[in-house]
């Protein structure tokens, strides 16, 4: 089976790796600036699909289908983001005789609209966050909901997901602007300006459950992931298992997730995202009908390969595990390494990576999408890699992550590596005391530069810089000498030749 990977960056590399282990040839697609990207140079074949903007390349269904036909690919893996949750794309693949490595277009449709998903889940007896189940037709409906339910509320894109296109409103005078911004973002990211509102769950944790199903009606869950730590509603650290979920709660979450997936006849890998209040009441938030960014933490703890499972299931294969065979082991943490400056509220920091030292050693997995000499483009999500550490306990996994972060060096651009070092040392993180607002609360501290070096180290760095400046100054005088030696040798050579 030849597989076209309709994505870029680290996830495209991850999928190509799974294909390679299974002996499946791979086809990468790329936009103009991505010709030398890692996923392109790593694949067996690569086909250009347009200029830099995603809507003219990675979002062009027609060009991707053409690339699959040109190369004789049998299947398409969408990764996550881009077209991964686009039912039209899944349908176009099916119509073109290509296997879509993911769920059916019908399941994607059912879960793709947040409002429809909320209606379906309510009907199936799955708890949802209190709020509207229809998109609003005007600002007045948002204002009416806010007045009736009371602030704070969340305004969300009906077609949204993955934390994009949503805004928290805590004050009435912010309401209109938040509505307009969310509508505008919804239109530009999801091509659909519809929004709705729901009550904001105070001090929530973000817990999600991994499920996998096959086309024969078998469904299992692979426990939960803790995804509470976010900035701008984007996850940055994920853990498996959640430090606040015990076995009893895990069984209840798992049963709820399987029920939710079954309600839309789901197959392939998928994730049920939940909000959990301090009272451990949980609510269905959305289903991600695709592989999740943070899937490696589940893979490490549950000893599975979700991408290989997806490839098997798409070909009609039966689920390789039964629920009672699946047992978690140890603890895994993932840090998303972004090209962002933590000291400037995580502002993007694209540019040339001059030097890179990747972390290695026991229990370390780095899902990398870049290399030294690579220029991080401005057009796409700024994630460089995902650093995942696994160990027997959460405390050991944290220490392992600190060690790996120390080894991980990227020079040329700002990254979130120093932020994660700070976080791994933070007493509240270590004690698992956090909610979704935790990182925003750290921003003032981060602006000061969180990992202050002691005087000894600063002195050592200054001494090194002074020596290097001294060496450079000396070198300026050297070439003349070397030059004359070369000239002398050359002259001697010429003289000898003349003899």
């Amino acid at each position, binding site marked *: 089976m030849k597989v076209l990977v309709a994505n870029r960056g680290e996830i495209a590399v991850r999928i190509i790796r799974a294909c390679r282990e299974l002996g499946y040839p791979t086809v990468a697609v790329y936009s103009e600036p991505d010709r030398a990207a890692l996923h392109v140079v790593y694949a067996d074949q690569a086909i250009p699909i347009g200029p830099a903007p995603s809507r003219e390349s990675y979002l062009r269904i027609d060009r991707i289908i053409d690339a699959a036909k040109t190369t004789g690919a049998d299947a398409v893996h969408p990764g996550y983001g881009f077209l991964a949750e686009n039912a039209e794309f899944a349908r176009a693949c099916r119509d073109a005789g290509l296997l879509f490595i993911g769920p059916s277009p019908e399941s994607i449709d059912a879960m793709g609209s947040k409002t429809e998903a909320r209606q379906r889940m309510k009907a199936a007896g799955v708890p949802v966050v209190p709020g509207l189940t229809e998109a609003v037709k005007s600002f007045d409906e948002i204002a009416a909901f806010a007045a009736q339910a009371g602030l704070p509320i969340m305004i969300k894109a009906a077609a949204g997901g993955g934390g*994009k296109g949503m805004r928290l409103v805590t004050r009435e005078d912010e309401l209109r602007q938040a509505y307009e*911004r969310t509508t*505008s*973002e919804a239109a*530009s*990211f999801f091509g659909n300006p519809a929004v709705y509102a729901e009550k904001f769950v105070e001090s929530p944790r973000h817990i999600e459950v991994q499920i996998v199903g096959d086309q024969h009606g078998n469904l299992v869950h692979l426990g939960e992931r803790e995804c509470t730590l976010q900035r*701008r509603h984007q996850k940055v650290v994920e853990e498996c298992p959640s430090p606040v979920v015990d076995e009893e709660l895990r069984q209840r979450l798992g049963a709820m997730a399987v029920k939710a997936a079954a309600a839309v006849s789901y197959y392939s890998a998928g994730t049920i995202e939940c909000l959990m209040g301090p009272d451990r009441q949980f609510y269905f938030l959305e289903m991600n009908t695709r592989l999740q960014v943070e899937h490696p933490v589940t893979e490490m703890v549950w000893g599975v390969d979700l991408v290989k499972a997806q490839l098997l299931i798409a070909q009609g294969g039966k689920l390789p595990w039964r629920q009672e065979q699946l047992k978690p082991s140890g603890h895994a943490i993932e840090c998303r390494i972004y090209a962002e400056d933590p000291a400037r509220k995580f*502002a*993007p*920091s*694209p540019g040339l990576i*001059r*030097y890179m*030292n990747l972390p290695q050693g026991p229990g370390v997995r780095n899902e990398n999408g870049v290399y030294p000499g690579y220029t991080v483009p*401005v*057009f*796409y*999500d*700024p994630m460089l890699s995902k650093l995942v550490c696994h160990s027997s306990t959460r405390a050991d996994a944290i220490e392992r992550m600190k060690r790996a*972060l*120390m080894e991980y*060096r990227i*020079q*040329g651009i700002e990254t979130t*590596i*120093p932020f*994660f*070092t700070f976080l791994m040392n933070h007493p509240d993180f270590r004690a698992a005391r956090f909610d979704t607002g935790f990182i925003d609360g750290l921003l003032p501290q981060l602006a000061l*530069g969180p*990992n*202050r*070096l002691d005087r000894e*180290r*600063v*002195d*050592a*760095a*200054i*001494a*090194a*810089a*002074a*020596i*290097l*400046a*001294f060496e*450079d*100054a000396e070198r300026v005088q050297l070439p003349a000498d070397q030059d004359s030696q070369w000239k002398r040798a050359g002259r001697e050579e010429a003289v000898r030749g003349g003899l």
Partner: protein
Amino acid sequence: MKLIARYEDTDIAVEVERHADGYRVTLGDRCFSVDLVHAGRYVRSLRLEDGTQYSLVHNRIGNMHEIMMGGSRIEVEIIDPLALRRKSREDAGGEGGVVKALMPGRIVRILVESGQAVEKGTGLLILEAMKMENEIQAPVDGTVAEIFVKPGDTVEGGAALVHID
């Protein structure tokens, strides 16, 4: 060789001399005997007399030295005092009042009009970069003299956006 290290706006006198197989560095009132080796293009290993070793990633841009140690980074400027005297007078001036794009992106919306009075912190426009909408704010109080961009424009990092008088 006598140098000045400028670190966090403080100038420190540094002297570097060759000593044995390495160097002697006098830094303020401290003196170290060290050796420094290059481990590849960017990695330097600094070893003190007692064997303590620091692994540094080093990059130099002009006089600025960017150094990473462990998970932290510092920037130190190493100045040759003779060269400094020449340069100091040239650095005044600048283009006060022009708000520039900190990163490349696309202009989504303009929030002000030419001639409008703004206060420091007033939102001027929305710049979308890396899938995020960022509000660019006025750095000073003043009047909007000119707007150089319009919605839909793609701008490079450093591009002039708005001029504030």
